[in-house]
């Protein structure tokens, strides 16, 4: 699932906006930006972080550079084991022409960052990003499974997989998304956003305001 393949598949499925959020790394976001620009789709650049509570949270940014900066801090903080490509697959990152630039050493989905949800929220917001706890209703790696309750923190929104939401969201807006790990899943559970203009700032504002229609 290369950056170009993701961008092309998203375009083919009729999406206007797509975010790339690899687990605990943002090293593919520069190539993803290039792919989005070539294909003509609006890209958002982020990562899916495993918090110290072992909940998955999305940190989303306007620019790959910001995602990379956050990614560097997260990767350094990740308590994990070395990746075994035979068991868990290659963890490569690519350049704009889809050449392999390198491979990530730590097993990206096998550990957790030392930063808590609240700390990650703060780190994301101070970089003008969006912070969305992922699939909060899933039985693993979710707010529900790890905490059991919705914290009061000022999340941009939360991600749910089933409607109506099974947790009390305390008035927070919610989105649905594909959480695609394979190309054919891209575009599932998409949502429509009421926005003034197709910019990161307006997307963030509309999500935060809950101007969301689940498709």
């Amino acid at each position, binding site marked *: 699932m290369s950056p170009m393949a993701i961008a092309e598949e998203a375009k083919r499925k009729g999406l206007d906006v797509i975010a790339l959020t690899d687990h605990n790394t943002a090293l593919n976001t520069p190539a993803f930006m290039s792919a989005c620009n070539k294909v003509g789709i609006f890209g958002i650049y982020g990562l899916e972080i495993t918090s110290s*509570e072992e909940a998955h949270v999305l940190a989303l940014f306007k620019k790959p550079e910001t995602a990379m900066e956050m990614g560097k801090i997260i990767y350094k903080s990740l308590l994990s084991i070395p990746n075994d490509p035979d068991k868990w697959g290659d963890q490569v990152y690519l350049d704009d022409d889809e050449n392999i630039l390198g491979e990530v050493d730590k097993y990206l989905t096998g550990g957790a960052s*030392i930063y808590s949800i609240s700390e990650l929220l703060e780190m994301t917001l101070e970089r003008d990003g969006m912070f969305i706890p992922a699939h909060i209703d899933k039985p693993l790696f979710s707010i529900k499974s790890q905490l059991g309750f919705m914290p009061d923190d000022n999340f941009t929104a939360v991600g749910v997989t089933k409607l109506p939401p099974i947790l009390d969201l305390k008035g927070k807006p919610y989105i649905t998304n594909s959480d695609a790990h394979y190309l054919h899943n891209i575009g599932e559970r998409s949502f429509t956003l009421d926005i003034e203009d197709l910019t990161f700032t307006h997307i963030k504002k509309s999500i935060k305001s809950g101007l969301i229609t689940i498709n």
Partner: protein
Amino acid sequence: MKASDLETDLGYKPAYTNYPDNDITSGFTSDLLSDVMGNAREESVLITIQAHKNTVACCSLAGISAIIICSGRKIPEDMIDAAKEEDIALFTTKDNQFITSYKVYGLL
């Protein structure tokens, strides 16, 4: 036992002074807060590495008297504030959860 026994007998470091010297009648070791919420008994001491304010929120709901943060993990200020607010004693130690559980069990 009392919360202060963790300081005097085991040398665990309180995260703030003048903590409430709560009664402790049981212990619970877990890093999964939904597990703590569902299964810990009231007046327990929680042994964990989850050093953040949501642990305090969970303990408050579960009626837990004290928290020990293991393996030398740093306690953020907002967690200390929450513990003060909820009258929960809060300690740190370099011991891991296994060693801490063994030591606390000996006091109960």
